[in-house]
């Protein structure tokens, strides 16, 4: 039996919704009892990566596209958690951010990608033909305690 839960939600492009979506991610992890024994840590991580992914999407949305909102898709099973965040902006070059380099602590900006890469197993950013971009975050879930 397929035990994957799919959550699809669209929010306006505004940072006032960060807490809502972060909490939603925590609730999915908690209610599905994903990663038993480590799920408080996973809850915090998912809240964090959702927040960072949304801030990226909102920051890169152009003024004319703000009313299209930001779409979030969460796929959760006992084996894997996948988050997709769709934006309609001009996008950014993920390859500019060198793998695994911790930003200079005295930088005021630029920690978001590092944080997502640290907390997830993979981070990809893809253009969708003629219709925006998607940030894909994946995490394999350890079934052992």
């Amino acid at each position, binding site marked *: 039996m397929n035990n994957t839960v799919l959550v699809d939600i669209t929010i306006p492009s505004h*940072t*006032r919704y*960060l*807490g809502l979506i*972060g909490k939603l991610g925590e609730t999915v992890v908690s209610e599905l009892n994903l990663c038993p024994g480590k799920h408080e840590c996973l809850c*915090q991580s998912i*809240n*964090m990566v959702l*927040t*960072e992914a949304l*801030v990226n999407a*909102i920051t890169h949305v152009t003024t004319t596209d703000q009313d299209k909102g930001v779409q979030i898709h969460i796929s959760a099973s006992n084996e894997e958690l996948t988050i997709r965040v769709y934006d309609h902006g001009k996008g950014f070059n993920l390859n500019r951010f060198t793998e695994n380099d*911790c*930003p200079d*602590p*005295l*930088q*005021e*900006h*630029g*920690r*978001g990608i*590092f*944080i997502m890469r*640290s907390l997830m197993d993979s981070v990809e950013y893809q253009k969708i033909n003629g219709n925006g971009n998607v940030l894909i975050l994946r995490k394999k879930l350890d079934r052992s305690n």
Partner: protein
Amino acid sequence: MNFKTDASGKIMVIYVREDRLDANNAEELKAELNRLFELGTKDLVIDLNDVHFIDSSGLGALVSGFKNASARQGSIKLSALQSQVKSMFELTRLHRVFDIYQTADEALTGE
């Protein structure tokens, strides 16, 4: 953003009264820190006891305050970091930048 400010001698204590310090309110904290520095405050304690979540924008606002204080030969100390906030500081190595205390009182006495 909700915060309470108390003066303890020459040191100002800011109690951040928010569950989240993130991109939605980090600029307000940054602006408040700037305002206090421009009024002549040099040494600040920021108490984060109520803050259970911080993102990269929240971290950036604190770093901005730290740099502002340093430029004025002042200081910013942090107190009462909750577990997620502590984790983010360690992940981004900011625990090596800031002086962090268990309580605002300890930060004021420097213990």
